[in-house]
């Protein structure tokens, strides 16, 4: 059962990464392009959480300030 929910998260994350970047490719407004790019970064984070490895989390979230949040989440 845990595998189902993890696979669900992995699937959504992978879908987010691919589709959001593909949508960013066709934008002409640069702010909107950055917005879609931010969406695709969230996809990477969801992908990292979907793997369910603790060590994957701080390495996956590229922003350093994420780490205290993640530590708090696992406390």
């Amino acid at each position, binding site marked *: 059962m845990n595998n189902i929910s993890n696979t669900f998260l992995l699937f959504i994350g992978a879908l*987010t990464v691919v589709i959001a970047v593909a949508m960013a490719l066709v934008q002409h407004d640069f702010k909107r392009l950055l917005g879609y790019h931010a*969406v695709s970064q969230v996809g990477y984070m969801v992908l990292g959480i979907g793997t369910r490895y603790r060590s994957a989390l701080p390495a996956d*979230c590229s922003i350093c300030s994420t780490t205290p949040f993640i530590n708090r989440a696992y406390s």
Partner: protein
Amino acid sequence: MTLGCSMGAVYANNLIILVVFWGMLAALLYLLVSSDGTVKASASAKKALIIIGGTDACLIFAIGLIWKMSGTFLMEGLHISLNSPFAYISYICIVIAAFAKAGAMPFHSWLPDVAQNGPAPVTAYLPASVDKLLGIYLLAKRLCRYLL
């Protein structure tokens, strides 16, 4: 004030307090984005408020289900095994709320609009840093509580 609300949501040990700060952040996002004053900015602020507010309702529903299953609002020591329909529904609802806050795929459509029409400092601060981290935080926390 926004930073204070987000820190409150992170350090809240009670699910009700988490929801209160969560909703305050949605309202602050609306106010900050619409502070630009243009029609487009207020339209995208309204869109963000509707999407985040609607998924807040999912979060409140999930917390109600958690209370029904475990009888407590405290996060410490809360462990839920995914073996009943209630647990599945609450899990899905919390994931929906986290996705909408972070801007993941099915609920992402407010983020590009806010980035395009909102004021640039607000875009850099709220959706790009605080809201995204909060959504991922809730996802990690929930996953920890449900599965570990």
